[in-house]
């Protein structure tokens, strides 16, 4: 049996397959479809300081090989998460990681500090890359000095594994990666959605209420792979890769490019069992290629 376990910044994962924030709810929605204990981890929906209603409808447009969304961080805020959601999910037999979002440095710090108190949450993922909020959000993820600042401020109050999720909407992803490592990030997750737009020509109107939105799905995979590869060469912290992963082959490609683990996002909508099938598929790939440890594949792309 090949060994799929990975250790990311000191945190053990039974396999490299996790699910992406915003595409997996709080995990319990998938209980009818899969055994959550088969996953390496679950990244739950973004949590902010206060309740957010999110953006107006319509929030979704289907595209060739993908979709645009403008959900806008709808959630009931950190107190609701701690009292209503955490008790419900804390005993899942997998790593539960919370995606932390905000509009100001203070908000990120407030949420991170509260989550630091929750025993069964071993890590947070700072979302400095959401394209769907007017204030902050993506600004933190596109200006290196701001990315360093928000990471460093959260680092002061958060004592477990600190992951930072990067936006692909930048000229140099390596500069942003270096900036968050300087701020104290233990792990880098990439990529969030690519800023895009859809137009209804008949009505001569934008499809989304916010005009622009975040593109996800197979359409963004080549961009995501390139960025994982560039960041792998630029910094020495572990990388969690995602963007358009639909099957085990896609996942292996991300691992070869330098990801220590991967996240399954939009694929969950089409096949709610996609994540578990990907874990099985990685195992058969390893058997077929006689790979004993998944870690032997991380960054193992041969370029000469």
């Amino acid at each position, binding site marked *: 049996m090949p060994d799929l376990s990975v250790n990311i910044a000191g945190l053990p994962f039974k396999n490299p397959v996790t699910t992406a924030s*915003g*595409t*997996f*709810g709080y995990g319990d*929605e*998938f209980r*009818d*479809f899969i055994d959550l204990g088969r996953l390496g981890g679950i990244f739950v*929906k973004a949590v902010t300081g206060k309740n957010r*209603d*999110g953006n107006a*409808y*319509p*929030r*979704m*447009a*289907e*595209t*060739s*090989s*993908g*979709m645009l*969304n403008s*959900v806008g961080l*709808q959630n009931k805020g950190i107190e609701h998460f701690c009292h209503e959601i955490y008790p419900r999910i804390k005993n899942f037999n997998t790593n539960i990681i919370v995606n932390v979002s905000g509009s100001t440095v203070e908000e990120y710090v407030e949420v991170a500090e509260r989550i630091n108190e929750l025993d069964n949450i071993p890590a947070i993922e700072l979302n400095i890359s959401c394209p769907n909020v007017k204030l902050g959000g993506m600004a933190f993820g596109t200006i290196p000095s701001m990315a360093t600042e928000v990471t460093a401020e959260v680092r002061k109050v958060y004592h477990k594994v600190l992951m930072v999720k990067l936006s692909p909407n930048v000229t140099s992803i390596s500069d942003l990666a270096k900036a968050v490592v300087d701020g104290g990030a233990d792990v880098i997750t990439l990529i969030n959605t690519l800023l895009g737009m859809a137009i209804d020509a008949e009505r001569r109107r934008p499809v989304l209420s916010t005009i622009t939105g975040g593109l996800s*799905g197979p359409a963004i995979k080549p961009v995501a792979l390139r960025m994982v590869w560039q960041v792998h060469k630029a910094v020495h912290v572990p990388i969690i890769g995602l963007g358009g992963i639909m099957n085990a082959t896609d996942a292996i490609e991300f691992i070869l490019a330098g990801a220590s683990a991967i996240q399954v996002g*939009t694929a*969950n*909508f*089409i*096949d*709610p*069992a996609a994540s578990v099938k990907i874990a099985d598929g990685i195992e058969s790939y390893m058997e077929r290629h006689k790979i004993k440890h998944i870690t032997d594949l991380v960054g193992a792309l041969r370029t000469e």
Partner: protein
Amino acid sequence: MELKKLVEDLRVTGVTRLNKRHFTLELLSPVKLPLILPGQFAQALVENSPSTFLRRPFSIHSVDYQKNTLRLLIQIKGPGTSHLAELKAGDHLNLIYPLGNSFSLPFTKDVLLVGGGCGVAPLLFLAQFLNQNNIHPTILLGFRTREEVSEIDAYSRCGKVLITTDDGTEGEKGLVVDHSIFQREKIEFKKIYCCGPDAMMKAVAKIARMNNTDCEVSLENTMACGFGVCLCCITPTDKGNERVCVEGPVFNIRRLPWK
């Protein structure tokens, strides 16, 4: 009540072309059908259609627990539904189901069902369910034209059927809200269930409100997942933004900000 959701390949056992734009699929489940309630829907995977990336939602049109089959009524709109129209007996269709909430049982026997377009789909199942509870509703169905009037026999077995067509080729001419049952000073129904285009549901809701009649509508919305995790399908209600695929698709009009 929480019902277990399944992801299954169902076998197509019957395709009935109702007219140019509508057809029904009868689908046989490989496992015992779960409990399905009227108003619930399924997310269908459209295979081999490159421009159809996401699943497509369809209401459950009827259920036959003895044959272990369910039926969908589909209107051809774009690439996804055109592709489904090519399915033949023996093919498979992957569904996630049953999804969403359901219509509630009424506290009265004076019940009216109103449907238009593909919005008639959940009403047959609802009418059959009401019959099992000894309620024989009046069923008002709106169609574009005579050629599209279909499955009237099935509805007639459940209750009294009234028809409108846009062009007057069958039943009364006009929209469902133009029907003579609505032209009286006070309508005779104590509960209305409605499904159809947005404008139609809003017009029916207005009549219900004026008559102080309880009314449930089944909303349509663009969906990505269909089971509550993407938050793309929201609608504003008295509790803020709620998911049409989980808290809906059926809402009491009291809870909607419709004037």
